[in-house]
């Protein structure tokens, strides 16, 4: 049994059946899955969730599938790291890293949304799936589709990082590289979904796909011991995850699973692609699209479809936004690696760099629980870190040479103090 009630337009409230659907027919507003929360009361409990599988499917009652999960059996339930060393460095009391760089099987938050989308594609009877992607989504769609025996087309900008290309090609999808940026790819995909009877996960399965992003928020709450961070910093690209983490918090509040501590949401964007943050800073409701120019390619979306809702949630929740320069993104990647042993991609560096700015600006108080959402893995974007480390010494396999080297290293260490922010 599912608690899904209908698809409803977020703008005009028009209701639709559970079907592949891109937008509302009336006003092109996004459609969202509506649930029967009354029926969940007393049935969806902390205990029922804790008794579920060790994956994102433990939140199945709050996800829009009708039958059993068809993929993603090991996706989600990623580590929530209590980041005490990083907290000490930043001078904050309680800091968590929600670490989707460790997601299964493709090391990004996208394994959440794709688990739901591919399950839904199978439920609807599609034999071909696809996506518009900056890389991470393509990896996830290709991997989940391969494991499900579906034909796959992934549409990507022509200039993705080499690691991202290998990481999707290995699963055997048809990769289509498109001249232009992600927004060009996305526009083409919406036209492809119109013409071909394929499940384009972020187009005609979007209402179901986006619901998967809630599991990131559900897990934060459960892993914090059934409570919410007071401040959550989330990267913003197309604008899916931030409003959905917020929705997850609100659903848990509504079901009485966590106390309402008025959680505030904060957007992180790269300076070279920051339409949402600019709109927040300028106090306007509508963002102006940008032509992205940043090393954080996985979040280089200048025309975010859900940007309007990101701005709204941030306002409603009392949060804010920040943007980070490429150099700050690199520094933050290294800081997270050095303090917590987590290697994230530039999107994660952006999120941490922006969290640091918001703390320094006093927007996020130092004495309240903070969660920084890390959504991707640094091993996919090695290029951005190349040449940033001192040359590694080579010695012969002789103990004497090793002793000399260690002595040199120890002398260097006492001379220089660790770098701080």
């Amino acid at each position, binding site marked *: 049994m599912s608690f899904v009630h209908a698809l409803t337009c977020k703008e005009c409230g028009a209701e639709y059946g559970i079907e592949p659907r891109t937008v509302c*027919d009336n*006003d092109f507003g996004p459609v969202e899955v509506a649930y029967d929360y009354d029926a969940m009361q007393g049935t969806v409990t902390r205990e029922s969730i804790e008794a579920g599988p060790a994956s994102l499917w433990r939140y199945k009652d709050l996800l829009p599938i009708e039958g059993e999960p068809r993929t993603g059996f090991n996706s989600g339930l990623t580590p929530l790291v209590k980041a005490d060393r990083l907290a000490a460095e930043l001078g904050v009391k309680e800091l968590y890293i929600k670490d989707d760089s460790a997601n299964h099987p493709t090391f990004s938050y996208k394994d959440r949304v794709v688990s739901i989308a591919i399950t839904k594609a199978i439920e609807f009877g599609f034999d071909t799936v696809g996506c518009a992607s900056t890389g991470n989504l393509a990896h996830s769609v290709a991997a989940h589709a391969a494991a499900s025996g579906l034909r796959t087309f992934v549409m990507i900008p022509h200039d993705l990082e080499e690691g991202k290309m290998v990481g999707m090609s290995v699963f055997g999808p048809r990769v289509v590289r498109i001249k232009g940026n992600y927004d060009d790819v996305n526009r083409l995909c919406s*036209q492809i979904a119109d013409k071909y009877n394929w499940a384009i996960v972020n187009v005609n399965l979007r209402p179901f796909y986006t619901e998967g992003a809630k599991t990131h928020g559900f897990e934060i709450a459960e892993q914090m011991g059934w409570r919410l961070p007071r401040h959550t910093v989330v990267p913003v690209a197309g604008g899916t995850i931030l409003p959905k983490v917020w929705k997850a918090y609100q659903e848990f509040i509504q079901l009485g699973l966590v106390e309402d501590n008025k959680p505030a949401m904060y957007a992180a964007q790269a300076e070279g692609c920051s339409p949402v943050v600019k709109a927040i800073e300028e106090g306007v409701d*509508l963002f102006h699209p940008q032509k992205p120019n940043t090393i954080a390619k996985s979040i280089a979306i200048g025309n975010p*479809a859900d940007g309007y809702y990101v701005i709204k949630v941030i306002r409603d929740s009392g949060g804010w936004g920040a943007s980070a320069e490429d150099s700050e993104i690199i520094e933050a990647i290294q800081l997270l690696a050095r303090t917590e042993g987590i290697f994230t991609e530039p999107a994660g560096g952006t999120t941490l760099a922006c969290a640091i700015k918001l703390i320094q600006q006093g927007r996020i108080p130092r004495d309240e629980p903070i969660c920084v959402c890390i959504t991707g893995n640094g091993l996919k974007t090695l290029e951005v870190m190349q040449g940033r480390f001192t040359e590694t010494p080579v010695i012969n396999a002789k103990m004497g040479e090793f002793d000399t080297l260690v002595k040199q290293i120890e002398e260097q260490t006492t001379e220089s103090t660790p770098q701080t922010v």
Partner: protein
Amino acid sequence: MSDTITIQIPTPLRPQAGDNATVDVTGSTVGEALGALTQQFPELGGRLFKEGGNEVNRFINFYVNDEDIRFLENLDTPLKGGDELSIVPAIAGG
């Protein structure tokens, strides 16, 4: 040489556009071309624009030969014969 502008109609709007995937109009700006389109198919007007106004529905993007009109001159963006004007719903991604 023809001064025809071809407008690409997305699936959700085709019922209001006589089930056409493309509609040919004339007009020297995006605003004029859309005016000609909505004159021919009045039901489209309420979908493309907020009620009664010139303000574009925020979930619809217009592209002239693959460029978003917000990077050009919005509804004042000039058109010439042979140009293609696409109506595309905003789409999520990542």
